[in-house]
């Protein structure tokens, strides 16, 4: 937060450069619309105001929901062959990697039969999230626990110590936010209603291939 002669603004400094982030970072508007010096605005936080004890209660409860839900998904994905059939990239996927990157950059989305299966970037994104980011979030959370630190002396040093683990825990959290943002963006631009219906009912209208393809 920075105070000028006539106003107070929220400032975020990134590698020495300062940005005015009033309302989002540094100086935010509280539950009643009043200016508050805080890292994040209340709508991004649970609970809205800074309240560590309650935040921990929410965190640890939903950590269990997340863990059990995640385990159930992974067991189901393996048992139902969803993992091998739909998520693991095959040789054709790897060969089409560059083309897929090109298509994504041009916002060209698969049509016809190709639209009924995950494309290679989608597969890789899902695999990185399911087997990379989510387990990393859990493990780095464990690394913040003094009790779990003690179970195997020195294991937290593998990532550079507790403060590194803490940074990784937050970095992973933001990467997950980024994933969700891109995921929702793609759901919307590739046909919101069609996508939502297929997620819930399994009925999917296959986009017709346009002439220039």
């Amino acid at each position, binding site marked *: 937060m920075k105070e000028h002669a006539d106003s107070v603004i929220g400032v975020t400094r990134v590698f020495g450069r300062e940005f005015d982030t009033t309302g*989002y970072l540094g100086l935010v*508007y509280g539950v009643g619309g009043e200016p508050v010096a805080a890292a994040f605005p209340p709508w991004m936080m649970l609970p809205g105001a800074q309240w560590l004890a309650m935040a921990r*209660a929410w965190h640890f409860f939903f950590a269990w929901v997340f863990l059990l839900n995640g385990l159930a998904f992974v067991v189901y994905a393996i048992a139902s062959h969803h993992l091998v059939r739909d998520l693991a990239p095959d040789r054709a996927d790897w060969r089409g990697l560059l083309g897929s990157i090109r298509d994504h950059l041009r916002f060209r989305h698969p049509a016809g039969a190709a639209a009924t299966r995950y494309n290679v970037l989608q597969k890789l994104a899902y695999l990185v999230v399911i087997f990379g980011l989510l387990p990393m979030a859990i493990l780095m959370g464990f690394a913040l626990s003094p009790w779990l630190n003690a179970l195997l002396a020195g294991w937290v040093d593998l990532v550079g110590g507790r403060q590194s683990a803490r940074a990784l825990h937050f970095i992973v959290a933001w990467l997950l936010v980024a994933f969700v943002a891109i995921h929702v963006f793609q759901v919307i631009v590739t046909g919101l209603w069609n996508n939502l219906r297929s997620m819930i009912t399994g009925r999917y209208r296959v986009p017709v291939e346009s002439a220039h393809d």
Partner: protein
Amino acid sequence: MTRLQRRPSRRRFLARATAFASAAWLAGCDRLSRTEWLPKVLNTVEPLNEGIAKAVGRNAMAQEFTEADLSPTFRSNGTADPGTAEYNAWVASGFVDYRLAVAGMVASPRQFSLAQLRALPARTQITRHDCVEGWSAIAKWKGVPLSAILDLVQPQPGSRYVMFYCADAMTKDGSEIYYESIDLDDAVHPQTILAYDMNDAALPVPNGAPLRLRVERQLGYKHAKYITAIAVVDSFAGIAGGKGGYWEDHGYQWWAGI
């Protein structure tokens, strides 16, 4: 004080709009946090966390570090100086009149001077202090193992917890003092010590002089500073706010291993 003036800009308007649009959602969540029932639901996982941790690591030893790992500064959190007349007098006299009272459900209640505590067997350990706020720091602690004290006073059958009462008042009128409690498992753990030295010097006032608890596998708020009395009890339900510690009475978890 600086007066806040609103610069009319689209950006500021958008920020405000977001704030107001989310007010309903926010108010809902904040109201949930303030209900009687929701914190109870959220805290149902506490016994699960503690139970699993105990099952997999009841006797595990906290990581110990080397002199090279010592933190250049060790923050003083919470009370930095109890500042009462009695405490100031202790500081002035080098704690010669200080006594640690050990009582409760024990066969032989006792008082210990600092010199008597220093004469007991000691343990030295370099460990990391993990604060619930996120920071951590490594220091070297020397003190008497709590188990040695308990051996001298002999806890009676039925004892379950060890209470620590501190010299620092948490309210201006002294109505609340800092206190903490741990169970007997932690009390007899080899690394649970009553530390009187920090980094090879007498424990400084900001870090809890003359005596503080080290209970290495739990977060910083369990490590009571300025301890003046210890009591062995079978329940802490009737003590102060009934949750077993100052921060516990203010919503924090009693078992602070995570």
